[in-house]
């Protein structure tokens, strides 16, 4: 399982790549593995607002439907539109080509609540027990 060092994580298995007041968001390698083959995706549109801890979209594998939870509150400034036609990209490359949305976040203090790679790894390991 892969936990890139330059990312922040949530307990709902999203990752964030924070740069300035923007964050790119996707789901983790662990999440895509647990879901299995991803076959459908619903994402917000540019201009929509998302709220930390609330659902911003839906990902469906062959077997299951899962909500996507926003790691930070803010405005959606970019959406990875090609993913809708190639949701398997999330399985193949969850941290790069499989990114989902870019958020301009409104409350920088929320970043502190995110997990660092070591803490997220520990969380995943504990969850597996």
């Amino acid at each position, binding site marked *: 399982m892969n936990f890139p060092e330059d990312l922040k994580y949530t307990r709902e298995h999203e990752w964030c790549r924070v740069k300035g007041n923007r964050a790119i968001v996707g789901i983790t390698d662990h999440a895509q593995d647990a879901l299995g*083959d991803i076959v459908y995706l619903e994402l917000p549109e540019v201009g929509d607002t998302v709220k930390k801890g609330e659902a911003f979209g839906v990902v469906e594998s*062959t077997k299951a439907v899962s909500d996507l939870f926003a790691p930070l509150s803010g405005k959606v400034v970019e959406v990875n539109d090609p993913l809708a036609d190639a949701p398997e990209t999330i399985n193949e490359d969850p941290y790069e080509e499989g990114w989902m949305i870019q958020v301009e976040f409104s409350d920088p203090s929320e970043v502190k609540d995110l997990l660092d790679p070591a803490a997220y790894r520990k969380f995943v390991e504990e969850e597996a027990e």
Partner: protein
Amino acid sequence: MALRTPLYDVHVRSGARIVEFAGWDMPVQYAGILDEHEAVRTRAGLFDVSHMGEVVFRGPRALESLQRLFTNDLSKCADGQAMYGCLCRDTGGIVDDVVVYRRGAADLLVCVNAANRAKDFEWLRDHAGGADVRNESDEWAQLALQGPAAPGVLQKLTSVRLSSVGTYRFTTGDVSGVPCLIARTGYTGEDGFELFCPPDRAAALWDALLEAGKAEGAAPAGLGARDSLRLEMAYRLYGSDMDDGTTPLEAGLGWVVKLDKGDFVGREALVRQKEAGLQRKLVGFTLTDPGIARHGYRALRDGQPVGTVTSGTKSPSLGIPIGLAYLPAALGAEGSTFAVEIRGRAAAARVVKTPFYSRKK
């Protein structure tokens, strides 16, 4: 704690993801559902279906007794032939859908769904009119080798001439030294075999089949692929698409209900239902809007709930969302349109002919 098949350790060792299904710890996937689905459609997949149950009718009254409990006509089933049908209650409600393997008029094996092992055995025993009925579910393991390469792979391991075993026929013989009932049956829509064998030999048979199928690309396949494969064929799944509260006529299984074969449990109710006309029926549909319909979603017409989705997925072979739903009979004709409520949104759907998928000839 969930039950385990004799192959549980083999699955864990093979890296399977285990989920609980019908009270059993079963492999839902190995390499991935889409890969396994494709293996079965294009090469061969090997399933552990040992969770299925086996109830055996024996003795002079076996045939007559089972004939009274089964909707299909066993007088048309030759020795060495298998027949699909339903067990019904007096109300016409489905106790289970089963496959009967007629070894002889005095020896019939009924293969039942895992979740219904105890229910079916009790039902059959209590309504058998004194015939000898035994629950042999723990005495059999069951492996299903399915896909276009299945006959070639299996032939390497047995001296039984498989070309002489037709569809829905069976025989007995050794496979890699393991005594088996070898049936040309399955739940995938592909050519293939189901092998009933002693539980303590199941692991050896499993390994031998995968080894023999290496060159052909045979792969272990889990319940996830089994579900998407059966749904592409519109094969019904007991507990999802039908239950004690639905009749075979409503479930679109009228073709295995022989009302003219003589009396059987449920016949009267089914005759009445047929004469009165069906209120609802199970239909195949595809979504014409984006989304995936799932079990339990509501079917809408003009914004009003009119029915329920019982199965749904994105068809791996066809790449489109497919499903089964109960709709009012008047809305069930091919081409009829309705909507499926997906997270508060109405996704347009159209009734289509089934099966969704046809085997490559």
